[in-house]
Each structure stands twice: as structure tokens, then as C-alpha cells.
């Protein structure tokens, strides 16, 4: 049974933040969702201090082996999340990781303090890499900014702090080192890659925001390369993600140094993809794979 920063998990597959609304899925599929929940831990959509409606449509665009999105972090804000969503998320049969994002260190501190004191919350993920919001780019692009943020937040809680890394930098390993030096317990990567597409019908950008984040199997080689570099640079655990659609894909991430893996876009195609990937990864399905030895990452 995997241990992640002291949290016991049933297997190694979790969800990428923002790719699964467990409360909506429970309304659609009923309590069958809870009987075979697809993830070993559930990561919430990113919570911001104030409510956000999200971006104007069009928000998604299919690309070869992937998709672009520019959703804009719609959420109820901290108070709405704590009052309405957290009690329902606590009914999920797995530990809860809450993703938070703010535009200043003070607001980040407010979020972390408020979320960490709730016993339903097992860990906190810091979204410093959302490519749709300017502040995310600024912190997550800078090793020193990332270190300073982690340093400021570290004393607020003993619960694990996970820094979600952006891939849209020249040297993600340097940012991961900043997170580790600031006291983060783990890093997760990759977030979406900045991308764009032309809508042939309008002759303009396909997404209303002008650009979006690319996800799906198209990004997997980028994710693996960045994971390998990060794994070589830090000793804190890594959560690897980026286009994982099968146990064989997940096994590559394990070989490149991931303690856990996350499934994102594949859940859109298969609502139970998390369970399938986990079973394949642990060799429990006919399509199962051998879990490979960790590569020499030096």
C-alpha cells in the first residue's frame, strides 16, 4: 500500500486537479461512484479566495491526441468551498487533497490556514502554475518566488504541501529545487502546456481567451522528460502526470521517478479511467504491466 507523505493510499493513481468534479459525477452516476472510486486520493479543483465564474466560452478545443482548455478556475471561493463542498467531498472514500491558488502571499496564507485546519483535508496542493491566470505564471516560473512562497506557507500547517509545477519554463528542475528548499513535501507535474489553435470557421483563435493549456497523450513525452529532470534534482516525492491513459503509460512515469501518478484528460474519455490505469499498473488486469525499476536519473 503506497505511503505518500504519511498518507496511506490504496494504489498509486490520483486525479489531476481540475479534471474531475466528484460531486457532479456522484449526481450523474449515483453512489456507484463511491463503491469503486477511480482515484486513491481526490484532488479538488483549485480554490481561490473569492468566487470565480470562469472564462467566457469557447473554453475547449480538440487537438491531435489531446485538447486545449481555458476554463479559468471557476469555483465558489474559499467560504463557499468550506461551507458547501468540503462536507460532501468528505464523504468520498479516499483522502482529500485541496488545490489552492491566490494572487498574493497573504491570500495564499489565508487559504492554506483555513483549509489546513479542517480535519477532512489530508494535504494541500499549491497551484503556482495555472497558465490561464497571470499570477500563476509569475510565481511558478521563478525558483526564488516559488521558494519564498513555500517558505512563507510552511509554518502554517504540518499537513503535506505539494507544489504543482508549470511546464512552461526553461528549467522546471530549478523551480522544483526552490519548492524543496522552501519546505514543500512534494511536487506534482506537469500542468498544461501553453498552446493555441485557429478556428477555421471564424479565422480567429479557437478559444475565447486566445490561448489555453494543452493536455492529453500529446504532452506525455514532455511530461516524462520534465519528470526525469525534476526527479534527478530533488529528493521529495513527485506526482507525475501528463497524458496518462493506461497502466503502461503510468509505468513510464514510475520509472522516471514518480511516487504517484495522476490521470486527467483520460477521465473525460473514460469516467473510470483512474481505476483502469491503477489495475493495469498493479498488474491486476490482462493488459497489466510490470512496474519498472526506477531509472538511473543522474
Amino acid at each position: 500500500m503506497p505511503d505518500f507523505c504519511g498518507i496511506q493510499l490504496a494504489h498509486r493513481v490520483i486525479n489531476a486537479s481540475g479534471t474531475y468534479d466528484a460531486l457532479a459525477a456522484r449526481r450523474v452516476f449515483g453512489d456507484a461512484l463511491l463503491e469503486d472510486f477511480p482515484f486513491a486520493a481526490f484532488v479538488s479543483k483549485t480554490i481561490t479566495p473569492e468566487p470565480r465564474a470562469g472564462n467566457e466560452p469557447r473554453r475547449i478545443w480538440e487537438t491531435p491526441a489531446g485538447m486545449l482548455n481555458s476554463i479559468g478556475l471557476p469555483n465558489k471561493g474559499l467560504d463557499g468551498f468550506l461551507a458547501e463542498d468540503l462536507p460532501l467531498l468528505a464523504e468520498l472514500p479516499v483522502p482529500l487533497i485541496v488545490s489552492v491558488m491566490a494572487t498574493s502571499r497573504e491570500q495564499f496564507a489565508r487559504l492554506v490556514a483555513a483549509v489546513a485546519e479542517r480535519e477532512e483535508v489530508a494535504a494541500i496542493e499549491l497551484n503556482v502554475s495555472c497558465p490561464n491566470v497571470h499570477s500563476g505564471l509569475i510565481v511558478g516560473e521563478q525558483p526564488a518566488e516559488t521558494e519564498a512562497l513555500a517558505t512563507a506557507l510552511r509554518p502554517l500547517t504540518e499537513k503535506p504541501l505539494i507544489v504543482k509545477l508549470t511546464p512552461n519554463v526553461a528549467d522546471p528542475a530549478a523551480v522544483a529545487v526552490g519548492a524543496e528548499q522552501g519546505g514543500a513535501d512534494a511536487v506534482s507535474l506537469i500542468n498544461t502546456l501553453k498552446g493555441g489553435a485557429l478556428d477555421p470557421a471564424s479565422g480567429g483563435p479557437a478559444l475565447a481567451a486566445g490561448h489555453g493549456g494543452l493536455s492529453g497523450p500529446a504532452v506525455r513525452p514532455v511530461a516524462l522528460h520534465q519528470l526525469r529532470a525534476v526527479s534527478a534534482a530533488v529528493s521529495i516525492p513527485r506526482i507525475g502526470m501528463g497524458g496518462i491513459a493506461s497502466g503502461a503509460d503510468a509505468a513510464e512515469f514510475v520509472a522516471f521517478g514518480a511516487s504517484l501518478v495522476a490521470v486527467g484528460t483520460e477521465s473525460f474519455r473514460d469516467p473510470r479511467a483512474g481505476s483502469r490505469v491503477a489495475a493495469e499498473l498493479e498488474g491486476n488486469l490482462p493488459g497489466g504491466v510490470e512496474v519498472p525499476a526506477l531509472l538511473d536519473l543522474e
Partner: protein
Amino acid sequence: MSAPYGRRLCEVAENRASGGYRIFSLDDREGPEPAAGQFYMLAAADGWAAEGGRPFLPRAISVAEAAPAGDGLRLEFLVDGVGPGTDRLCRLQPGEGVWLTGPLGNGFPAPREALPGAAGAILVGGGIGVAPLALLRRGLAERGVPLRVLLGFRDREHSGGLDLFCGSGGDLCPEVRLASEDGHAGHRGYVTDLLAAMLSGDDAASAVVYSCGPPAMLEAVRRLCAERGVASRLALESPMACGFGACFGCAVPKPGGGYLRLCVDGPVLAGEEVEEVAAAYA
């Protein structure tokens, strides 16, 4: 009723031409009977995310007919090949596998749920959007609800699905009126011309208008009904990656600000829940 959890593999039973469109059917042994207006996420088991990497995401398709068959249901879908996903669905062969999730979303409410004291229903469909109205028409007709069905098409090539509106004798049901922009069938002009004429009648306010079709047509229906004080229920379409509330891609603006998720809050919305049916999110 909830949808079965996860996607399931169904077999293609048939694929036939219907005017310029295709109708394919799937045998579903697990799912509950869908309500008219509900949809499924569909992806061919083979040739999806294959060469060229597209189609990649499953496609949201309204169900046009559902009938008991064998030990399950036979579901019919009306499709027009307008991109890599619908092109692939148009080419499905009997015996092939299709990944299916659903039924998803809400269906059309009964007339008296939409309007207490409703005396009848007017169904307005355009193009490929006639599909959910076929299942709706059959259900309402079986319950003896007074009905008018108005179907519009651009031209002969962009028309089809009429066989879903036929009685047992194979003739178009008597309550169906057609319009076509090129005049090849019925009234030359827009289907909303027929609706406008019908809504000027004295008893129009006691009817509920049900509609599905292209954004410009739906917006015209929404406005006509709002102006005349007629209750309307519109089945919208939106780009959608998942169909179960996960991706937040299918945002539709609400009149008071903010957004609905069409997959879990729709796809059927009351006219007053929609600010404007714009092509930008259709």
C-alpha cells in the same frame, strides 16, 4: 435516475442513410431508458484517437429513438458528418463496438411540468437538431398530448431524419409541417416562420414550445416565445469533453451572470434560463 457508472461497450446494430444524414443504432444491455433530450457520449472502439490523433474526445449525441430489443434497448442516433468525430460515427458498421456513457443530462419535461395547465406542445426542430424531438414526439403522442411538429432544413443535402417522424404506415405523421430554405420541401423559408404564424393563434399561450436546432434558429425560437409569453424548453449544444461535469468546457452564460454547465445543468433549458443562444458556445 443515474446513468450506469463509467463507459460501456455497445455493438452497432444498423447504420442507414436518412436523407443527407445517417442513423445508426446501438444495442445497450445496461442502460436505463433515456428521456427525450438526454444524450450519450459516444466514441468508436476502433479508429478513435488513431492516425492523426483525431477524433480524440467522445462526442455528445442526443438520442433519437429508444426501444426494447432483445435483453436491452436499441438506441438510435441521427448524425451528420461535419468533422472527424461525426465522420467516424457515420462510417460505423454493424457489429463494430462503440464506447457509450449515459444517458446524460436532463430531458424535456412534460408539458404540465413546464406549464401548469398546458394544453399541448409545439416541437420546433432544425437540421440535425430534429433528433431529440423524434423521441419526444413519440412519447407525447402515446400519451395523447395535442401536438404540432415543425421541422426545418437548409436544403436537400442538409436534411434527414424524417423517417423518425413517420407512423406505422411509413407516412409522415399528420401533425408534422416542414420548411426548407431552398423550398425543396414544405414552406420555403425558415421553420420559425411557421412557428411565428402558429404563435399568433389564440390558444398559443397554453402550449409549451420544445426546440432543438442550430444556434440562430434556437435564438429565434427563444425570442419569439419570450415576446409572446409562451413557455419554451430549448435543447442546446456545446463543445463538451466529458458529459458528466468534469471538464467545465460546456459553459453557457446565465442571464444574471456566471455560467451553467450544459452537460449537468442541461442540455434542456427553459428559455428564460438562457441569455442568448450564441454560436460562440454552440
